[in-house]
């Protein structure tokens, strides 16, 4: 996930606490221009703007973000209760708001809800590849509508591969990223699990996980046309 844009720098400690605990990456700026210069290549994931002592600067930043060709969303503003009137006729500048002092649970919930609505959550809910669908929220996997009964490690391996289609992974990489190494079987474990997964996917879909000879495994077709 790309970082969230935060204002001002440093953001209120209560906001930082929520972002850190929920695992959102973030980056704070103090001047509206910095929102452009500091922007990551794939764009901000969203913005948390605290009006604090500089409501004018805060709303200027909001306007700038919303007047882009592709308006940034979601934007959540954190305001003091006596600043609520400032929001009048600025409804288009933000998606949600939160009052100072910040209630951590409330801000967490609002962020989660916003990201769910915009489909850009920390963890996308669904991972789809052709006939295969993984619901990352409920840990369920289905192929052509048929639910797969996976063990935990089979699920984790499938999730790892399906999230990175076309990419080739060595057994060592898979072992260190999916198992974290502390496993009996060594790299052969990966082969065993791939076979188990293929068996469960069924003959028709077993090719979703391809063996790349003397390298490792790849999920789906390579992204390069031959």
């Amino acid at each position: 996930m790309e970082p969230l844009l935060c204002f001002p720098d440093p953001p209120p400690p209560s906001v930082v606490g929520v972002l850190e605990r929920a695992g959102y990456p973030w980056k704070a700026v103090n001047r509206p221009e910095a929102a452009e210069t500091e922007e990551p290549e794939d764009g901000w994931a969203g913005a948390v703007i605290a009006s604090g002592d500089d409501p004018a600067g805060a709303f200027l930043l909001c306007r700038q973000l919303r007047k882009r060709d592709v308006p940034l969303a979601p934007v959540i503003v954190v305001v003091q209760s006596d600043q609520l009137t400032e929001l009048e006729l600025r409804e288009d500048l933000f998606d949600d708001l939160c009052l100072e002092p910040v209630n951590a649970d409330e801000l967490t919930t609002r962020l989660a809800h916003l990201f769910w609505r915009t489909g850009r959550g920390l963890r996308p809910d669904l991972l789809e590849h052709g006939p295969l669908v993984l619901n990352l929220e409920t840990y369920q996997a289905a192929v052509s509508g048929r639910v797969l009964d996976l063990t935990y490690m089979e699920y984790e391996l499938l999730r790892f591969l399906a999230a990175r289609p076309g990419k080739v992974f060595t057994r060592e990489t898979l072992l260190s990223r999916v198992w974290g190494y502390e496993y009996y079987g060594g790299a052969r474990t990966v082969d065993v699990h791939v076979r188990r997964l293929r068996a469960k996917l069924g003959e028709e879909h077993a090719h979703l996980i391809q063996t790349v000879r003397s390298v490792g495994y790849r999920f789906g077709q390579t992204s390069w046309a031959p």
Partner: protein
Amino acid sequence: MRSQEEYVLRTVEERGIRFVQLWFTDVLGTPKTFSITPAELENALDEGMTFDGSAIDGFSRVQESDVLARPDAKTFQVLPWHRHGDESGDAPVARVFCDIFNLDGSPFQGCPRHVLRRTLERAREGGFTFFAAPEMEYFYFADADPSTTPRGIDRGSYFELTVADRASDIRQQTVLTLEEMGIPVEHAQHEDAPSQHEIDLRYTDALTMADTVMTVRLVVKEMARQQGVHASFMPKPLAGVQGSGMHTHLSLFRGDTNAFVDPERPHGLSEVAEGFIAGLLRHAGEITAVTNQWVNSYKRLVSGYEAPIHMSWARNNRSALVRVPVVKRGKSDSTRIEYRAPDSACNPYLAFAVILAAGLRGIEEGYELPPEADANLFTLTSDELIAKGIAHLPGSLNEAVVMMENSTLLADTLGEHVFEWFIRNKRAEWAEYKAQVSQFELDRYLPLL
């Protein structure tokens, strides 16, 4: 809560699982289970479930009978034959294998999974991972009525392709169910004897494989039951035809490298492989009580039915106890050895543990590999065998138990609790058997004497 446990809880909720079966195994390899509801599952995963172990063969002594079953979350699996609930009114059911602990949290000595785990740990200290791939043979019979000779349900033979063969249909259904459970089958075929079938499993690490053997035995029986027939892993259910073995392919890996391979040496077999084979051969007598644990097991280990009876090894000689299959060129990673004594009615945890222990002992002590058996051993006389220095496997459960009793290797590997209980149990089985008067004796002696 660790993500593994969370995965299990979430799956139970999402799939509407109504019961979770906690699976474990007694000392003789009999599957045991009790069911809990999803409400109890979280607690079971956290703390384990207490139960009275004194009712389980080879578990507790009566005065300390309570033990704890702790689910191994990574073995959680929905049971496919319980799944299509709505039609049959059956509730979706899942299973999870358990390790057994004492109430103070220490591993329970009588738990076969611990015995294997401990032995695997020893292999790991030497840098080895142990892989196993068994070939499981069994029969389909019309029923389980012991008062008559078992009746098979087909008349096919080895590799036979038959038309509208009921047994083959059941076997096919079994393989599909196993695959659905993530148990890849290398191949399945009709075996030599009428109604005898074989399912060959793809290798996995030995602990997973022991769990898998338990699962396969259950699935085979369950699929047969659904078709109104009886599947049996009895080692020798019918006189005059082959028994059911569990030839097991074994290999040791060091990281990514097959430790049995050394292209510089004769036959491409490393010193590790030679030590392992030598260990197996030297200790074969001691471990047989475990790999072939029933009175009936020794009716299979007789001359004339392709079962091993001599402690020998060979590359392509199926009369040998240890066979080293010839590997296709460029496939040196599949170098392995095949141990042909075990039958499919053994306790797979204990069997894999003692096999591994014997092999490791051979490697550690640098046992020398005896020469390869060149002739078909079944055709040699006992004098010729003695001249070649080839000993034979125990001929009865009694002989096997005597050899086991004198084995420190077995006492160390199984642990005192299992070792003692096992010997006591097998002595009792032998004593009961000895007191029987068989049909053979009546047929032969009654008219004559």
